[in-house]
């Protein structure tokens, strides 16, 4: 093999390796199963585009407003929020992990957990009895609540953890395990003092309520998103939920009936949240107004530009030198 062709091969190999590094890493695919997560580190911005307070109170609730759902100034049109995806990990969760993450999200459940722990419902025992393990991808995001002015330097929430279960059918198993456990706890006697502390936290939950609860907490979708949503809704057997493309549609009843449409973006996380009255009029809406993923093209462009200019300059100098002295 000549030195020249070897050099050419090395150059081609280098270019291919660097290109692969660029293409794969900026949008790392976390896992190659049927569904996979496509989290990308960066920041996504949201803006409240519509809020009709009167319609909200006559349709959704007079007791609470969007700020109670999303925090900050979510009830002000034009307010913005943002999420920064800081990283993600692959893990396998057991029943107890889901119990804490999906069902006992209220901080006042801590006392109930202590009592349960002393009465034969500790983590090991629950996991042994309901031995349902779910591989998943757990994202880590910091959240800045909706504000009408500029964002603070520090984020508002500790860490938001969107979860993508590798298999959406596992949501059904999680709900079934919870309902079985809740049934068991309701039948058990913890004593006259402890019963009122424990039992209210373990009420039977319908598939629709479960979907509504996780949609507000940690739900994120695997890719391909449309089939993931479809499988999630169908397996859970929700009566008041449907889907359309990447949108999850949930029918709710407040002061009157209303519809919530949640659309999930390329990363599997929420990019649009719309509340509509029965006539289809939008009462409340916030949407993603952009993310920072495109900046990577500027960075790559600048690096390529820098080296192109440098190479062009060197070639120009060499040519000028050759012209002058040869």
């Amino acid at each position, binding site marked *: 093999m000549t030195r020249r062709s070897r050099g050419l091969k090395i150059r081609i190999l280098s270019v291919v390796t660097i290109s692969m590094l660029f293409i794969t890493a900026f949008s*790392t695919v*976390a896992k190659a199963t049927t569904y996979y997560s496509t989290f990308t*580190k960066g920041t996504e911005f949201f803006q409240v585009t519509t809020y009709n307070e009167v319609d909200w109170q006559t349709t959704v609730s007079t007791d609470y407003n969007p700020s109670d759902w999303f925090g900050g100034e979510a009830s002000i049109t034009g307010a913005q929020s943002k999420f*920064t995806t800081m990283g993600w990990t692959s893990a396998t969760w057991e029943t107890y992990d889901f119990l804490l993450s999906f069902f006992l999200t209220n901080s006042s459940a801590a006392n109930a957990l202590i009592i349960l722990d002393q009465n034969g419902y500790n983590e090991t025992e629950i996991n042994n009895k309901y031995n349902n393990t779910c591989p998943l991808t757990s994202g*880590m995001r910091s959240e800045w609540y909706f504000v009408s002015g500029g964002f603070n330097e520090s984020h508002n929430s500790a860490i938001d953890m969107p979860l993508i279960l590798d298999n959406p059918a596992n949501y059904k198993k999680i709900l079934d395990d919870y309902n079985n456990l809740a049934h068991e706890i309701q039948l058990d006697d913890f004593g006259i003092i402890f019963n009122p502390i424990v039992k209210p936290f373990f009420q039977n939950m319908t598939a629709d309520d479960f979907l509504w609860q996780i949609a507000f907490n940690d739900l994120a979708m695997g890719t391909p998103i449309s089939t993931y949503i479809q499988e999630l809704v169908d397996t859970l057997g929700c009566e008041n939920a449907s889907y359309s493309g990447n949108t999850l549609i949930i029918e709710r009843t407040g002061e009157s009936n209303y519809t919530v449409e949640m659309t999930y973006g390329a990363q599997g996380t929420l990019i649009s949240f719309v509340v509509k009255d029965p006539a289809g009029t939008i009462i409340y809406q916030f949407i993603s107004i952009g993310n920072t993923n495109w900046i990577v093209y500027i960075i790559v462009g600048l690096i390529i530009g820098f080296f192109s200019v440098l190479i062009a300059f060197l070639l120009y100098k060499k040519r000028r030198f050759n012209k002058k002295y040869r």
Partner: protein
Amino acid sequence: MEKMEHAMEGFYLEVKPIAHAYVFELKQQWKKFVGFSAFSVLIVFLMSYVMYAVVPSSLLPDTQTEYLNNGLTFLSMFIIVFAACFFFSGIICSEYDKKTGYIIFPKINKFKLILGKYLGNLTLIIGVVSVYYIALGLFCWYYYGVSVNLLFLASFAIAIVYILAVSSFVTLFSSFMKTVNMTIISTILILFIGFQTADQLVTVFLPDFEPVYSMQFASNLISSILEQPFPNPRYNDMEIMDFTFRMWITPTIETGITVLLIYMASSLLIASFIFKRRQL
């Protein structure tokens, strides 16, 4: 009017050799500039892209300030020091190493020559640091969606003051050292090991004393200035075996800038004296 024209012409003739030396130095050192700029981009790329984008479980820092702090610490500790040593080490001693400093009737005033060379190298090193700041700022924008703010520019301004101090310090060594290599080695040793050893001795024996004498300590201001509010207290107390160590985080803005300017002025003054004596 005629006097004015004469004054202008006189000024032009005074400045012309400096400008020529400046341009010549830019032309001579541009490869170093490209090398250091590429190295800066590579470092930012490794710290920001390879560390965070390639490894999903490697979490981004909580805030953009923490992220920038990490990047700027590397800049002040390594890139500025190395760049200053490599750009300024030969500024005076190379004249004697190549015997041009011994020319009795030079065509160009030697002080003007040195000034032109100094300004040329200073421009290049500020360029390198600018490249680093731009790369870091772009990645910060990419991850956090935050554009450059005034504090980031203030940090850049302090980095320039730090460059002035370090470059003057290296110029001082260049004024009495015989070769470029010796200057590079000795200044790197002093800036990396000398100041750090002194800082550690002070921490142990004089825990309450703030190491304001240290250029490295003053350089902490480059990253600390980004923090809102500014660190207060400016130290952390650590108790180990009934002994309290005081780890100083940063000087005040005024103290830091003053110390760096004192380093610059005194180093350049001493360097000019030595240079003048060396010509005799």
